[in-house]
């Protein structure tokens, strides 16, 4: 493991490169109010972040990432377009032991808030990272959560089914269970059959904050769902093919078109524009891997382009990750939003790999 001094020195070098690319440095607090992070991530963040308490400020967290405070800072009065960079420690609880599982490590990050040309901004961040990491011979993987959301939005089925699927894109197990259910490929559970037949009335007294109306509303929805046509099995097969698509990046647009999901057309066009923008910035596309499910099991704020740079050792965490998070700016912007893309590099890992290539 790199010493703290080596990680900091490598981080400073990265920060200088980000500044040279036009970003202004920001320095968010290490102690962050817990509420915004908990609202966003739910219990997952409680398991990952160090939660502490201040008598006057309430529950606080040791900064588990920079993106949320940087977005908050931008949304409360940043000029447009804006580029930010930062360097500092993040803190993550580790439920498992092992050398790769540091509870405290540096991140150097670069974030772009720009409305004009999203694919250009995607390529800008990726190419900047690729240039910094070039000597390390890392493997780069890209994906696009926007393809998955477009495929869900394009389904010819009830809106409630589409919103349930869209909500679980980041939870593959639940997503695929729902898909199977909507296609009638798994049997309706007996308890659901009883409910739909109107024979599940309970004589227990009503308790709790959830009101009877909320239950009746859901039962109505479930009845609509039961009456709706099942998703065609062919549609499910196309989804499975989409989610398991992995190929060299230059082949991705054509392979995606070959799936026969018409709703993907705009997202495929965006992917093609992004690939062109990457090529124009000197990225050799043949070395990039495309993985349609990339980013599905990470934190759920990425909603478009996603990327990872990884070392050959599968035991090491990714050296750099990033992506587009337009929806996050809407959630944190209190009515305002701006397209945003960015990423982080772990300088400690970079320093390690530079010493022992």
């Amino acid at each position, binding site marked *: 493991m790199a010493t703290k001094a080596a990680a900091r020195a490598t981080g400073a070098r990265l920060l200088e490169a980000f500044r040279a690319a036009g970003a202004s440095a920001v320095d968010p607090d290490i102690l962050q109010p817990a509420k915004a992070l*908990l609202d966003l991530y*739910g*219990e*997952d963040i*409680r*398991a990952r972040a160090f939660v502490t308490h201040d008598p006057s400020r309430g529950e606080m967290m040791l900064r588990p990432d920079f993106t949320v405070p940087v977005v908050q800072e931008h949304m409360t009065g940043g000029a447009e377009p804006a580029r930010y960079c930062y360097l500092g420690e993040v803190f993550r609880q*580790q*439920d*498992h*032991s092992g050398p790769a599982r540091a509870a405290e490590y540096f991140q150097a990050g670069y974030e772009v808030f720009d409305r004009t040309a999203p694919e250009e901004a995607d390529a800008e961040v990726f190419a900047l990272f690729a240039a910094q990491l070039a000597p390390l011979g890392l493997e780069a993987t890209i994906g696009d959560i926007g393809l998955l959301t477009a495929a869900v939005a394009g389904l010819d089925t009830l809106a409630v089914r589409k919103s*349930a699927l869209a*909500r*679980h894109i980041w*939870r*593959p*197990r*639940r*997503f695929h*269970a729902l898909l199977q259910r909507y296609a009638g490929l798994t049997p309706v*559970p007996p*308890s*659901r059959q009883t*409910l739909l037949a109107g024979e*599940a*009335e*309970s004589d*227990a*007294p*009503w*308790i*709790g*904050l*959830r009101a*009877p109306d*909320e*239950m009746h*509303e*859901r*039962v109505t929805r*479930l009845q609509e769902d039961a009456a709706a046509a099942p998703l065609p099995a062919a549609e499910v097969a196309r989804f499975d093919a989409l989610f398991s698509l992995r190929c060299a990046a230059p082949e991705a647009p054509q392979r995606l078109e070959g799936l026969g999901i018409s709703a993907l057309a705009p997202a495929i066009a965006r992917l093609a524009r992004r690939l062109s923008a990457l090529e124009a910035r000197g990225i050799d596309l043949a070395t990039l891997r495309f993985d349609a499910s990339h980013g599905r099991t990470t934190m759920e704020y990425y909603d478009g382009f996603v990327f990872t740079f990884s070392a050959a050792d599968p035991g090491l965490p990714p050296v750099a990750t990033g992506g587009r998070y337009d929806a996050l700016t809407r959630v944190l912007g209190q009515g305002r939003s701006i397209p945003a893309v960015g990423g982080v590099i772990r300088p400690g890992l970079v320093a390690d790999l530079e010493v022992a290539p």
Partner: protein
Amino acid sequence: MSVKLGVPSKGRLMEQTFDWFAAHGVRLHRTGSEREYSGAVEGADGVELVLLSAGEIPRELAAGRIHLGVTGSDLVREKLADWETQVADLAPMGFGHADLIIAVPACWSDVDMLEDLDAVAHAFRREHGFRLRIATKYHRLVREFLTRQGVADYQLVDSQGATEGTVKNLTAEAIADITSSGETLRANHLKILSDGVIHQSQATLFAARGADWTGGSGAALAALCTQCGIALPKF
């Protein structure tokens, strides 16, 4: 150096532990006055009895301050990260059975499975502006289970006792707690989700991987294992 055996210091768990060892010819008993937490061992050489709160036994095992310990399998999983790297599971003891379960109001006739709970949590959050609250003291086990099962839009609220009352008192919408007969749940108008069993716990004999097993304690463990008819753990 003798093997330190940590046993719950009171109640049925202590008595049943004593009975279990007695059935294998090892007599554990308390010494001194009724209120004094000291004990003695007869029928096994080099074993020393340490009486402890059942809830502290996982921590003492993890620290290696005791070599062996009897406690609920739920407590070890809840309190120790990567528990299998810290302790070895020597023998289930056949008592102290309790299931860690998720329960919701019995009046929710539209909810029977985790799939329903997840859908209700989503609707609840939109309607009420905060995540559906699940009261529990088993934060790690419940969170890992719900993550594995793909349930979202919930939050855990800490409840160290009388957890079954939290729904009626409007401090939670659901609970995750241990139950043996389910009677307290029914009395509080709650029902268990049909796929909501998180862990089936029972009293279990654990060995500490990080304890000092040199200087005779390894041999004492081997003799005890032979006597009790259990396989010698690999450390």
